[in-house]
């Protein structure tokens, strides 16, 4: 259960967004914070091979994202900020079945896992509901469930609560806390990350603080004192 980054840097064209990142993440709950444009989202996308770094390498459980991208993406689930881009199929149950179908899972196994997941996340009553008619919180719940139904070993969240109200924020926060997998959460939501085993702070594409949640969050708050 390890994600390793060695000498990782990333550029988009001539814009440099990450540099000199060396990290070995084996804690269960890892948070990532930083200002807008600090490279957090790029960092998140490197972890499951959605992006391949322009410098250095990223390995998940020993698998190189550059050479074994497919295997890595099967191991690492990814939840996006905006559930609207993540929900692929028209209805709730169909969306849950989508990834399984593309992984070649047998029909009755798909039905079983979809039913289990619907029940586990309180989505059973929305089974045949058009996904676009769900509320914001339900949509995010579905987006997360659609990733978890694939049973990944790690889950990366890119600002999972940014678009949610307080109640749903807490609900999703609880869900994330209770996951059995290793979890990496990129977020501006400091409350969500409180109690995490480790939080990494990015500024200007570099890691500037790294340690237990309270410590890193305190460093972050100190960097940006109230005006």
């Amino acid at each position, binding site marked *: 259960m390890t994600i390793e980054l060695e000498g990782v840097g990333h550029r988009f064209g001539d814009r440099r967004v990450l540099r000199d990142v060396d990290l070995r993440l084996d804690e269960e709950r890892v948070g990532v914070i930083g200002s807008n444009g600090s490279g957090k989202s790029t960092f998140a*996308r490197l972890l*499951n091979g*959605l992006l391949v770094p322009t410098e250095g390498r990223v390995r998940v459980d020993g698998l190189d994202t550059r050479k074994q*991208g*497919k295997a890595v*993406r*099967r191991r690492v*689930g*990814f939840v*996006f900020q*905006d559930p*609207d*881009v*993540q*929900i*692929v*199929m*028209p*209805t709730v149950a*169909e969306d849950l*079945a*989508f*990834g399984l*179908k*593309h*992984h*070649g899972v*047998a*029909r009755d196994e798909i039905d079983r896992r979809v039913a289990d997941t619907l029940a586990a996340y309180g989505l059973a009553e929305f089974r*045949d509901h*058009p*996904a*676009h008619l769900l509320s914001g919180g339900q949509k995010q719940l579905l987006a997360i469930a*659609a*990733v978890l139904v*694939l049973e990944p070993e790690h889950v990366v969240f890119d600002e999972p609560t940014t678009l949610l109200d307080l109640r749903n924020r807490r609900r999703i926060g609880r869900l994330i806390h209770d996951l059995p997998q290793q979890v990496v959460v990129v977020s501006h939501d400091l409350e969500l990350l409180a109690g995490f085993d480790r939080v990494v702070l990015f500024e200007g594409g570099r890691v500037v603080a790294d340690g237990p949640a309270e410590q890193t969050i305190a460093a972050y708050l100190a960097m940006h004192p109230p005006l």
Partner: protein
Amino acid sequence: MLSLYHDARSPVHALPAGAKLLTLFAVGTGLFFVRSLPGLGITLAVVVALYAVARVPWRTAWGQLRPVLPFTALILVAQLVLTDWRTAVLVGVRILVLVLLANLVTLTTRTSAMITAIEVALGPLRPLGVRPERVGLLVALTIRFIPVIKEQADQVRAAQKARGVERSFAFLTPLLIKTLRLADGLGEALDARGLDAEPPRRRS
């Protein structure tokens, strides 16, 4: 329109999606060779009866039909002007039957079942380089995008109204850029969900 599955237990729901699509296809073709008014009338009656069998609430059925009526009325008027009343009624009823039937199929068939049926139908084209599961995915995404585009259009229009711009085609460009960005995100999400993995060799 599309993607509006109405869940119920009925013989119509229970029919295989392939059979329903095939019927739709056959009627959509065959109806154009029916030139007898009583014949069309009977077809219309059968389709309406099927709605009852499918236990689709009348409100739902009407909600699906209503947006289409102005267009049908226009065609009816045009036909009346250009031809005779008989042809006009013929054309009008024909459109009505087709729209009702197409709506019935979409109301009683899960999108996933419809897509599987399309994939099966395209199977024989595999040697020609057609990849049925890709087409199935494309169809699913298209259906998924329709409400998204409408939502985004409403948002863009509201944003422009808030800035004092009323009714103009200026909303087209921001709408396109917003939806392109969404499509981009969706493509990324497809990757994240392992779509790039080898398509399964599966005969379900």
